[in-house]
């Protein structure tokens, strides 16, 4: 479930094992061989469907999950609908975990989606009961596979390839069901599994266990349900035992989730545990009230036109009802569950120098990978902000306040220069390295429009790192000259500190603003402001030297350090333009063309002299 990765790593061995076992039994037990082959085909078909929907939806599925999950009822409904349509709770879970990791979705919403997805997954039971057994679906299988194979010949777009995969997947699933059904029918002539039916609660517990183990082994509750339904349809298992097997399949699917979450981050673990708790509670309720639920199913069945002896449809109804009851009973406690899960798994992100958002689950989709990189770069900037403010001997809380600039620079952070290299090693290097590594992995499967954004983000990261390195050079003389007895040089270095404080404040305003026109003005203002460091052009240096106000050594230091301050400004402005302008904003296309150019800045300054 929540991790497709573990499913993927064992999917191929399981399928191969099933096919080999099918071959092994081919002569001695041809019907067992047919059933195993059917299961293998069903799994392959599911895989095709999932890959197809991923390519076909191409961002639409992510948009739906992002937009319609802000409240718990909405999240449950979205989870239900999306799973019922794409027929893959694994795909929905993977997207949910990656959104959770990228903070595009809260834990309550994610839990809602998973609950809804549990109801949505029962759609497979309905499909198998309705179409798989009522009609001869193997007749439709081949035409669907043929359509799927020929579709990509007409268009090479991802969407068409996705649709073709969905067709091929459905066709293979139909074939699989048909083989399973055929296998169970012929098996009945030899062995009657129904003779092993156990009555009472002993049978219920026994079959719950069998259902759970089967799902853990096959790694797909949908496949287990397909087996149960076909076995029930051919009379190989008795109705009550089939219900118990269905409960077992629901419990078994959480083991896959837990196994997968072992390697996931805190969010993946929280979601897997939430899913586990939900399915266990639902399973316990279903087992405790299995006979009452059976009566409820019989009662409801007559109202929706299900025959009294149509056990496969009644099983599908039972599967849906006990999942709905589970959601109704557990949903009111989601906020309590969230608190419990947050206490159970404490975010490792508390460690400042470690990446917070670069989870491998985000690599599954280009959009989530990009969001993860944006979030991590923002995290890198937050750490850089702390280092730069300390480097120019300022207190972060003062910069972020409305305090007057003169008061901010008077309230110094320390009396001694900090070791910026040490801070860089602890707060920057690890995150920066991880971002570059993650970016390299992400770009492998990214379309061209994402690659362009990725390139800009790489540059933004480089700008942040270089701004820190420039601060390191600047720091030495800031500490030396802000305590100098020469008031002129002291004034110049405090002016640099004021300028950088103003810049950091402007960037914070850009970061917090969601108004395009405001961002545009702020960027232009910051660019004009950075020209204050051009002390050669504005005549400051000439005046100080000519009037003998500073020594030659002070003059060269001031010239170099003004250059460092200018570079810090330019790099941070460039970074802000990439990082803090929303990717979907109208400004994104025109930001570079509309912001003030160097030539316009010079003419603006000339006009105001």
């Amino acid at each position, binding site marked *: 479930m929540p991790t497709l990765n573990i499913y993927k790593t064992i999917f191929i061995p399981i399928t191969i094992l099933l096919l080999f076992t099918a071959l092994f039994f081919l002569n001695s037990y041809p019907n067992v061989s047919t059933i195993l082959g059917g299961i293998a085909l069903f799994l392959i078909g599911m895989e095709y469907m999932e890959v197809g929907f991923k390519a076909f939806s191409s961002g639409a599925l992510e948009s739906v999950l992002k937009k319609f999950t802000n409240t718990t009822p909405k999240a449950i409904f979205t989870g239900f609908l999306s799973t019922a349509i794409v027929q893959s709770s694994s795909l929905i879970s993977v997207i949910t975990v990656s959104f959770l990791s990228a903070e595009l979705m809260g834990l309550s919403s994610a839990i809602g989606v998973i609950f809804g997805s549990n109801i949505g997954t029962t759609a497979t039971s309905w499909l198998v009961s309705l179409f798989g057994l009522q009609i001869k679906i193997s007749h439709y299988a081949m035409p669907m596979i043929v359509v799927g194979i020929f579709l990509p010949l007409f268009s090479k777009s991802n969407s068409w390839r996705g649709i073709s995969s969905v067709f091929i997947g459905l066709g293979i699933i139909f074939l699989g069901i048909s083989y399973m059904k055929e296998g169970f029918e012929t098996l009945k002539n030899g062995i009657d599994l129904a003779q092993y039916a156990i009555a009472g609660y002993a049978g219920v517990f026994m079959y719950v266990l069998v259902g759970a183990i089967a799902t853990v082994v096959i790694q797909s509750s949908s496949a287990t349900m397909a087996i149960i339904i076909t076995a029930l349809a051919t009379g190989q298992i008795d109705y009550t035992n089939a219900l118990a097997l269905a409960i077992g399949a629901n419990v078994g699917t959480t083991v896959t989730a837990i196994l997968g979450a072992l390697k996931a981050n805190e969010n993946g673990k929280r979601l897997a545990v939430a899913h586990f708790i939900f399915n266990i509670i639902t399973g316990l309720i279903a087992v405790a009230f299995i006979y009452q639920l059976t009566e409820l199913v019989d009662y409801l069945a007559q109202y929706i036109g299900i025959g009294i002896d149509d056990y496969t449809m009644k099983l599908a109804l039972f599967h849906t009802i006990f999942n709905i009851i589970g959601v109704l009973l557990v949903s009111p406690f989601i906020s309590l569950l969230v608190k419990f899960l947050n206490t159970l798994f404490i975010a490792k992100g508390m460690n400042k120098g470690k990446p917070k958002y670069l989870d491998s689950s985000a690599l599954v989709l280009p959009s989530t990978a990009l969001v993860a990189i944006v979030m991590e770069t923002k995290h890198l900037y937050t750490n850089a902000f702390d280092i730069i403010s300390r480097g120019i001997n300022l207190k972060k809380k003062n910069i972020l306040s409305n305090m007057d600039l003169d008061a901010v620079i008077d309230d110094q952070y320390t009396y001694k220069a900090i070791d910026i290299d040490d801070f860089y090693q602890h707060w920057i290097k690890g995150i920066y390295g991880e971002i570059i590594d993650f970016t390299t992995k992400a770009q492998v499967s990214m379309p061209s429009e994402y690659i362009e954004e990725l390139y800009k983000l790489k540059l933004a990261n480089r700008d942040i790192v270089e701004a820190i390195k420039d601060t390191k050079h600047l720091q030495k003389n800031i500490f030396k000259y802000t305590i100098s007895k020469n008031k002129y040089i002291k004034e110049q270095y405090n002016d640099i500190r004021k300028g950088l404080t103003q810049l950091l404040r402007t960037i914070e305003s850009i970061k917090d603003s969601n108004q395009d026109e405001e961002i545009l*003005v702020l960027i232009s203002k910051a660019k004009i402001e950075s020209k204050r460091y051009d002390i050669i052009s504005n005549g400051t240096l000439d005046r100080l030297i000519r009037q003998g106000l500073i020594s030659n050594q002070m003059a060269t230091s001031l010239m170099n350090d003004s250059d460092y301050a200018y570079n810090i400004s330019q790099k941070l402005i460039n970074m802000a333009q990439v990082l803090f302008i929303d990717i979907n904003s109208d400004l994104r296309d025109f930001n570079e*063309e*509309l912001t*003030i150019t160097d030539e316009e800045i010079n003419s603006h300054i000339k006009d*105001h002299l």
Partner: protein
Amino acid sequence: MSIKKFIKQVKRILLLNNFEQKGKKKSLKILLEKLEARKRVLRKIPRKALTIKERKALKEEEEILSLQIKKGKKILKELQSII
């Protein structure tokens, strides 16, 4: 009819040519409206109530806005000539 020709026909019938430019034009128009609205708001601020420093900052912002509106209109004109 070849597939390429078919796609071309569909694009022509559904007026999908220059779709990207049209999207850009729309974005720019929205942005220009926002910039002009901001300029109008700034103009309404009573100058007398401000300090010299604040008046200077306001004037600078107005100048930046005028410059950006001018540049935006120029780009819009270029886009309109393409479409």
